[in-house]
């Protein structure tokens, strides 16, 4: 980077263990957060609704999955299912007890998702690798099925759709059809910032180190005194909690109404893509990956219009799918360790620039 850590001396243990040890990093993060809060002044409705809100939600889900897959090494394809639990439980709770603050409801729904994640995490002790990945698909399909079949979850309404009711916070409508995109964006942003910082903190401490030990070699980790059962289950629980909150946000802050199809297996794949393209084992990577996967389709949809090319709509859809796939393969070939690694390399290069020798 243009700046270095030279001259910044750590005089206390607390200072040595900070989340962002370098002063300039702290400034950058603070500036980024400030900028993110200022965005509603610049962006229009379309950008907030179609790009920024989904970006934040996917980033949160990607952080959750990254904790599990990137840090603890357990590949999960059940993300969509856990998100669905979050969305449906929020709906159930807030329609039956409307007085609870909607943010608190999000958290409770997250806890429900965490509980479900705990149950589906149990086989991870015996099943490993791809066997586990396929086994987590059981969670994906089973949750989707049960949320569809049991009317209790959507209050027995005829369509089986859950719709976000209007809920207020401090006198401002936060969810429902009349909530403005700006407000929903700000709520989502605040939640994501808090959870990202919590995650960053988590992976730096004892829990995160235990996860990484399990990821690198679970038998070796067991020998040095890390309990695999508790550690893996904790990863599943926390990861599903994040996904659950992200699912609640999907329904209440983004889509407004949803069915279980909104949380299908392709959502799980997409979130896994974000984690891998962003970088396994990196919180920053989750954001970068989420930005990539959200922006590329928007770009691909609008690119033919920009260069004045017109073609039949279904043809365009197919070509979009094709390009999306090739871009993913391209990125995996160019940098299998993800965008976060690319960023790190850039920083190291810039540190020596312009005299690399």
């Amino acid at each position: 980077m243009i700046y270095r850590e030279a001259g910044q001396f750590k005089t206390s243990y607390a200072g040595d263990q900070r989340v962002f040890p370098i002063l300039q990093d702290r400034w950058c993060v603070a500036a980024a957060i400030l900028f993110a809060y200022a965005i509603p002044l610049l962006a229009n409705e379309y950008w907030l609704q179609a790009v920024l809100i989904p970006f934040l939600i996917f980033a949160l889900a990607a952080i959750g999955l990254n904790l599990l897959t990137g840090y603890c090494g357990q590949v999960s394809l059940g993300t969509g299912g856990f998100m669905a639990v979050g969305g449906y439980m929020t709906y159930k709770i807030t329609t039956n007890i409307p007085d609870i603050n909607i943010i608190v409801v999000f958290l409770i729904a997250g806890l429900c998702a965490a509980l479900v994640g705990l149950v589906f995490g149990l086989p991870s002790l015996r099943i490993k690798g791809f066997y586990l990945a396929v086994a987590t698909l059981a969670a994906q399909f089973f949750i989707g099925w049960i949320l569809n079949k049991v009317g209790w979850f959507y209050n027995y309404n005829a369509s089986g759709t859950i719709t976000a009711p209007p809920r207020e916070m401090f006198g401002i409508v936060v969810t429902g059809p009349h909530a403005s995109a700006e407000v929903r964006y700000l709520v989502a942003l605040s939640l994501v910032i808090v959870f990202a910082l919590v995650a960053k903190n988590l992976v730096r401490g004892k829990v995160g180190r235990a996860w990484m030990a399990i990821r690198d070699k679970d038998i070796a980790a067991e020998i040095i005194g890390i309990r695999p059962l508790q550690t893996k289950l904790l990863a599943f629980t926390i990861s599903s909690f994040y996904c659950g909150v992200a699912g609640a946000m999907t329904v209440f802050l983004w889509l407004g109404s949803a069915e279980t199809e909104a949380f299908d297996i392709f959502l799980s794949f997409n979130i896994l893509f974000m984690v891998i393209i962003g970088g396994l084992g990196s919180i920053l990577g989750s954001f970068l990956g989420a930005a990539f996967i959200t922006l590329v389709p928007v770009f691909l949809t609008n690119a033919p219009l920009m260069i004045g090319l017109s073609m039949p709509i279904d043809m365009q859809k197919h070509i979009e799918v094709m390009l999306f796939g090739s871009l993913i393969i391209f990125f995996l070939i160019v940098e299998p360790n993800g965008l976060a690694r690319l960023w790190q390399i850039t920083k190291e290069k810039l540190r020596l620039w312009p005299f690399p020798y």
Partner: protein
Amino acid sequence: MLYNFLIAPFLDMAGSPVFFAEVVISGLLTGVMYSLVALGFVLIFKASGVFNFAQGVMVLFAALTLVGLMERGVPVWLALILTVAVMTALAFAIERIMLRHLVNQEGIILFMATIGLSYVLQGLGETLWGSNVKRLDVGIPNASFEIGGILLNEFDLFAAASGAVLVTVLAVFFHYTRIGRALRAVADDHQAALSVGIPLKHIWIIVWSVAGVVGLVAGIMWGAKSGVQFSLSLIALKALPVLILGGFTSVPGAIVGGLIIGVGEKVAEIYWGPLVGGAIETWFAYMLALAFLVFRPQGLFGERIIERV
């Protein structure tokens, strides 16, 4: 409640054994179809360690190509040969463009790359041949008849027979030909195979082509049964539980796994499905496979997982 779940279904089975036999047989025949898809996964996983999610789309792509050629007036036999040629060319391209650059990457990266590949193939196939549902008719007989009071369908039997032929041919190919021996060597140990002079790149092309041909057979069967369309690629999701149940590395495992899943699914759907509101076939296979895995983490016939520090 408990009586309904635990006893009544079995009484039903005992009550009408002919119907039960019919259910089991139709389950077995569906199972063969699952096995055909799972077989493609196993071949590629064994030879190159790639968990190829794109197998389902390869099935779709092969079927689409075949139908597309036939719609343009190409006779069946020529269309078949051309489709095999296309699948081989595809294998060549995949090795050149994708696999070669991803050697020695972690399994998950390769897995994600094949998901990307499945998007590409799906887009390509539908751009070339269109996305509306197509009927595939290669002249497989499709009449029902009865043996001992059990209703059977010629088409299902044909599918089962061609599955059996395919597996036999593959077994012979793997055991008695030079290339087959090389393939088994690679499956056993990449490094050792390389050091005795087996060219890995060629092997990969061959394996992907064989998987493509297996995909074509599966595509013909499924396509003739339910039409060639996008949803055909989703049978990959049906093949995954078969795969983990039988073990990723075992050809017999794919067959036996397919049969178990096929029968289990049919029986559960008919006898227990109504009790819980039906449509359980989306997840039942996974739960069944999960139950097996808890006792045998490497699947029924998978290689024993030996872990060292």
